[in-house]
């Protein structure tokens, strides 16, 4: 092969970054055909797994909340659940309702950020939310207010907007009063109306064509749309296991091109977690208005076009507002802010539905409640293979696109998964190698 025939061009694109990492995407093409797509993910939470060892079980929610600035509640909840499962304690009633409410705040905040500020610009052909603000300031103002309402829920219940400090194993340090929660109602009602409008807006976007045959995996929360907890892991192809058996079925492996671990289902392959999976498995458990919005948006019961995840996220935004309103309406101040936890040595498992998908934690505790081992599987590492498969299919079908256009579409395809910012994906560079 002559030098002239081997042409590698590197296009750099800054994405999802505050601090530079080494993540990137590499597409190898030969004779106009895509032969390989590799996504490098920079940083799984391994530092935190090491950092947790030797700490007390009670420190896990505060430490793991630091993993992600966007979904701290998910980390707190999964770690609390794991510790509580070991102690044989269940946080129930209003204490649990508050957890779900806090988590709704996080869903509102995170989904708003992604739908409006990160993903919508891709569909509308603008470079960023800044550009979007210039052509459609109303849309961005709506997003800012929605996000602020999510923040407010987190502040009132969690004690702080970022990294809630009020969460502890067993419940809360302090529970809010009824009046404090009721004060959130007008804003949440506005948020619900804005979310319904958002579903209509994003349903009218133009979606690149891509249909993938995913195995969708989500938690099963026994009759509820899974958010803050779920005892079983289920899939559209019959997987149905208690979360304690997570690692009997999910295999994490190092892949050569990435620091991260890629997860797949034993003897089955890639799977997908997140809004599309929750919707495919639990659509019937959405609030009536969220479900009606999904139908009106023309979403099929199982959405296989990953680009339509933006619509499902907007539908979940409606659900999160409805759920928050329902929880507040039924709230009664609990007599005690927490249940007593006596840590037991052994293995504990916890999982919840982060906005971007199942977040699984496993801990081994020693006799004094000290953490001997911690294992965290974030949604983005579970989706990594599916992202690569999407990109392979997408780039194969659109190999003729000019490189810049292809790069933008690939970014859009990766954003379909709302990849974690600090927990997994850090900095994306796209390298297209044409041989």
């Amino acid at each position, binding site marked *: 092969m002559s030098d002239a025939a081997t042409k590698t061009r590197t296009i750099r694109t800054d994405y999802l970054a505050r601090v530079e990492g080494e993540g990137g995407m590499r597409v190898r093409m030969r004779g106009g055909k895509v032969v390989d797509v590799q996504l490098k993910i920079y940083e799984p939470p391994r530092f935190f797994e090491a950092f947790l060892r030797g700490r007390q079980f009670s420190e896990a929610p505060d430490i793991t909340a630091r993993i992600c600035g966007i979904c701290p509640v998910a980390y707190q909840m999964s770690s609390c659940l794991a510790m509580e499962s070991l102690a044989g304690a269940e946080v129930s009633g209003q204490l649990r309702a508050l957890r779900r409410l806090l988590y709704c705040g996080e869903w509102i905040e995170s989904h708003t950020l992604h739908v409006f500020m990160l993903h919508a610009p891709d569909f509308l052909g603008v470079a960023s939310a800044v550009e979007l603000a210039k052509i459609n300031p109303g849309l961005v103002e709506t997003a*800012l207010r929605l996000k602020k309402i999510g923040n407010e829920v987190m502040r009132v219940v969690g004690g702080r907007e970022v990294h809630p400090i009020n969460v502890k194993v067993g419940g809360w340090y302090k529970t809010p009063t009824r009046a404090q929660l009721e004060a959130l109602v007008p804003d949440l009602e506005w948020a619900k109306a804005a979310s319904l409008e958002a579903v209509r807006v994003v349903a009218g976007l133009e979606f690149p064509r891509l249909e993938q045959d995913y195995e969708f995996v989500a938690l099963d929360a026994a009759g509820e749309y899974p958010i803050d907890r779920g005892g079983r892991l289920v899939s559209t192809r019959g997987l149905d296991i208690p979360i304690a058996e997570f690692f009997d079925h999910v295999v994490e492996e190092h892949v050569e091109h990435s620091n991260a671990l890629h997860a797949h289902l034993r003897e089955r392959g890639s799977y997908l977690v997140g809004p599309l999976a929750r919707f495919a498995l639990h659509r019937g458990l959405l609030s009536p208005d969220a479900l009606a919005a999904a139908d009106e948006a023309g979403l099929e019961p199982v959405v296989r076009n990953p680009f339509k995840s933006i619509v499902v996220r907007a539908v979940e935004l409606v659900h999160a507002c409805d759920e928050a309103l329902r929880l507040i309406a039924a709230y009664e101040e609990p007599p005690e802010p927490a249940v007593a936890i006596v840590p037991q040595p052994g293995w504990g498992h916890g999982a919840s539905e982060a906005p971007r998908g199942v977040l699984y934690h496993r801990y081994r505790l020693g006799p004094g409640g000290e953490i001997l081992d911690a294992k965290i599987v974030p949604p983005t590492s579970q989706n990594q293979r599916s992202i690569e498969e999407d990109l392979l299919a997408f780039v194969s079908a659109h190999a003729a696109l000019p490189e810049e256009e292809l790069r933008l579409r690939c970014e859009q395809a990766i954003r379909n998964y709302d990849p974690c910012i600090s927990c997994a994906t850090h900095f994306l560079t796209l390298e297209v190698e044409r041989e």
Partner: protein
Amino acid sequence: MTTCVVGVGNELRGDDGVGLVVARALEGTLPKDVRVLECEGEPVSLLAAWEDCDRTIVVDATQSGAQPGTIRRIAAHDGPLPPELSRSSTHLLGVAEAVELARALGRLPGRAIVYGIEGAGFETGAEISEPVATAAALVAASIRRELESGR
């Protein structure tokens, strides 16, 4: 005049946490009408922090290839931040994007000052490096003077 000082950063990523170091050095030492906040740099939170403020001072780490500890003071209300200070461009994340988003929406305080402190290392779990810690103390002093003189 309502003023807020915002330290931006992540304390678990070495020098990225320098904005927080400055904010903590200033906390409790400024006039009562000056709010001091810490933020991870997610732009919507920055916009919320600026709401109803006439003046903001933001401190963030930079990664431009300059000498570690290099301090830059930029009047963001005059125009966009220089490109070497905006680390992410394609999609909104970071101080530069927050400034531009606020400007586009007419939400940028009339006076918006950004201090950038060049970091040496951004490894997870690392400590703040020495030149950056020294620069943080200088920036904190400079902000104190700036607020006293009403610059």
